[in-house]
């Protein structure tokens, strides 16, 4: 049976330290931002956003929500609009793959993505002289003019597969495939695993009463789940919903 890799991000555990963002960028050879890059034009396959309940004084509350590609399972919007087949859903893993070599940079996928989890590469990837020695050899550097997004550290999946194959196994060891953001999270806020495996902790967490998905009402069935015990975060996370959703039932 094929796997369905996904995450459950516990917002009550996220301190907004940003380790996941930096680890993701280092793992995936994301270049340092040019001086004029902004949150809108920068490259942040993993982006932690700050949420606030909007109140004043001692009633003010803040939380942090890591946003990444939601790995939509059903009618994946970016796949259906891509004219170049540069986005594919890997049937054996459920990972939504971005293939930069095929990408024309038309940005239809960015428009189609309801989560704003895709980024256009506006500038040539450049590092200060010598810093290219620090690049991860397992991940290719992408040129400007292509769209980028999280692919659940697919290079790590390949490495785990190779290791399993070398050991004569057909299944990877779950400990060998952990995305960089999951590995970096100091509070263990990000659970990663196979949602199709009922015994996997991520699967259990995804079905807990505290769990919800962003924009669940549009039916894309994201494989990135969130959980929190705080009602205001859940309401805010899906505040534009016009009918009862998974996000509002608690």
């Amino acid at each position, binding site marked *: 049976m094929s796997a369905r890799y996904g995450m459950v991000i*516990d917002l*009550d*555990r996220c*301190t*907004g*330290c*940003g*380790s996941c*963002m*930096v*680890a993701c*960028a*280092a*793992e995936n*050879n*994301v270049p*340092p*931002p040019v001086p004029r890059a*902004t*949150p809108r034009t*920068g490259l942040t396959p993993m982006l*932690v*956003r700050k949420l606030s309940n909007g109140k004043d004084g001692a009633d*003010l*509350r*803040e939380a*942090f929500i890591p946003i990444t590609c939601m790995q939509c399972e059903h009618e994946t919007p970016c796949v259906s609009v891509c004219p*170049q087949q540069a986005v594919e859903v890997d049937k054996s893993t459920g990972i939504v793959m971005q293939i*930069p*070599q*095929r*990408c*024309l940079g038309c940005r239809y996928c960015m428009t189609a993505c309801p989560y704003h989890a895709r980024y256009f590469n506006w500038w*040539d*990837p*450049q*590092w*200060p002289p*010598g*810093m*290219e*020695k*620090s*690049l*991860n*050899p*397992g*991940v*290719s*550097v992408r*040129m400007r003019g*292509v769209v980028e997004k999280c692919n659940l550290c697919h290079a790590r999946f390949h490495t785990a597969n190779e290791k399993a194959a070398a050991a004569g196994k057909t299944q990877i060891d779950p400990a060998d495939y952990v995305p*960089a953001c999951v*590995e*970096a999270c*100091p*509070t263990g*806020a990000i659970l990663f695993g196979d949602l199709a495996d009922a015994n996997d902790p991520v699967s259990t967490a995804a079905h807990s009463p505290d769990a919800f998905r962003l924009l669940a009402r549009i039916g894309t069935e994201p494989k990135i789940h969130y959980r*929190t*015990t705080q009602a205001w975060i859940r309401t805010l996370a899906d505040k534009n919903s016009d009918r009862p959703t998974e996000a509002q039932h608690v």
Partner: protein
Amino acid sequence: MKVSRRDLLVGGAGVTAGFLFTPVPWKLLGDVSIWTQNWPWIPQPAHGPVDTKQSACTLCAAGCGIRVRMAAGWPVGISGVKTNPMTKGTLCPLGFAAHQLNWHPQRLREVRHRGRTASWADAQTAFEKACTEGPVAIFDGRPGRAASSVLQAFAAKHNGSYRVVPSPETQALTPYADWSGVPVSALGYDLENARTIVSFGASLLDGWGTPGRFTHLWSEKAAGATDPQLRLLQIEPTLSRSAARAWRWIPIREGSEGALATGLARVLLEERLVATQSPMAPMTLEDAAAQTGLGTEAIRDLARTLVEQRPTLVIAADGNPAIAALNHLLGAVGSPGGIALKSKPNLSHVRPQPNIGPNRAVLLDSSVPWDFVPETTAEVFRFAAWDGGSSKADWLLPSPGFLEELTDVPTAPTSAVDTYAVSVNLIQQSEEVKNTAQFLAKIDSTLPDVEKLIHSRCEEIFGAKLGMVFAEQQTPVTKFESAQKLEEQLRQGAIWMGNPPKPGGFRCILQEWPARTAPSHTSDWAAAWLPPVLPPLAAKLYQESNLRDVPARREV
């Protein structure tokens, strides 16, 4: 047949439209997109043998365990070491991109004298001359290292003084050292056994102390729980990252931390909530309420909570003695879950020498924070791996960057247990850089050698037969055959940890209630970060997101 202009246009349009229905243009587009992914000026990762090594991070005094992925001899990725008993696989966000720092545009690669290029020989001559003309002061930002012993030895032999620039965490422990006579380096926080932690502005969940230690503890005992095993009360004017995740955030007026501590002490003593003998806090509860902006009842409630939820540990962001005195009142000094005395005094307790008279020269080790500028008219020699743009140093001396030198990592300032690790140079040190010990050894060849000092410290640990070495497996020191074997393990990224602290062993005596009640301050997320630059990828945190503000006085 005559071809009209109209026929030409129609034919042209037809050909164009028909062409679009063939695969040719789309194939060409696809080919172009592939071709343009491979411009020759786009950097390619270096390919070569891939290896993983363990070491200790040397960016700050925390010394977190790091796993370094190497490719073609260069570090290409950093992650935490799960077997490290202090950090348990966690790192701060800066650590994940630290391997890129050695190529930071502001990396110092040449000796500079008042803004002009100079040579090591010039710097050496100038420093030797200064040593003969008058006293020199040598500042160390991370005492207890083997290199610190070299600095101390040089100062002792050359009419100099050895001084320490304490970290904010060390400053917060200083009042207990003053009241008990125990060296500050022998003190730490027993976070693991506390039930309630009251932070007066200390960024406990954001880089304080050994960043992963408290974060991991909080995630195990408090995160997401309505009735947590560990209660974090964050007292500070703004909703910081720690306050946002605290069990309770208590907003007070800026700079009124000391007043609140004094008000709390007043309640504890007046209502006889604690049995500790102490002079009466001089501030009335009403005054404390007026200064902090909290009601008197809120302060009373808070005081009762501190007592009911014991063991309670109070942590200040700085050395405000009024806040420290609360631990004394709550009986948290020398008790489990309080201020701990390390089981064995640190390997090298530093007693900074007083500032005696004017100095001819001041030498700042690369461990001294860039923000620290001694107020002196003396000639300043500053070692640094990165140029922070300071005009306060006469000499800027390029020192080894990240993972470029052999050094040891003694106990972190907030740790309640002694630890010792070794960080080997995974990258070859380039010829144009020198560390302070190498520089001083050129002047005085009789100074102790860092490598030999590390060896003798391993012998000390081996001889004491205490504690455990944490690598893939945990090995008691008693199981090691020799000091060499132990050193070998430490050089491969293991960490030695002493025995846990025993209750008691020291006590504080307060003759009078500390007069200083204000101002205090909150700690900065990058306060522990000593170099003047941040890894370029750290810009993701504030330039390409709204997650953080740009840290003050730091270049990216």
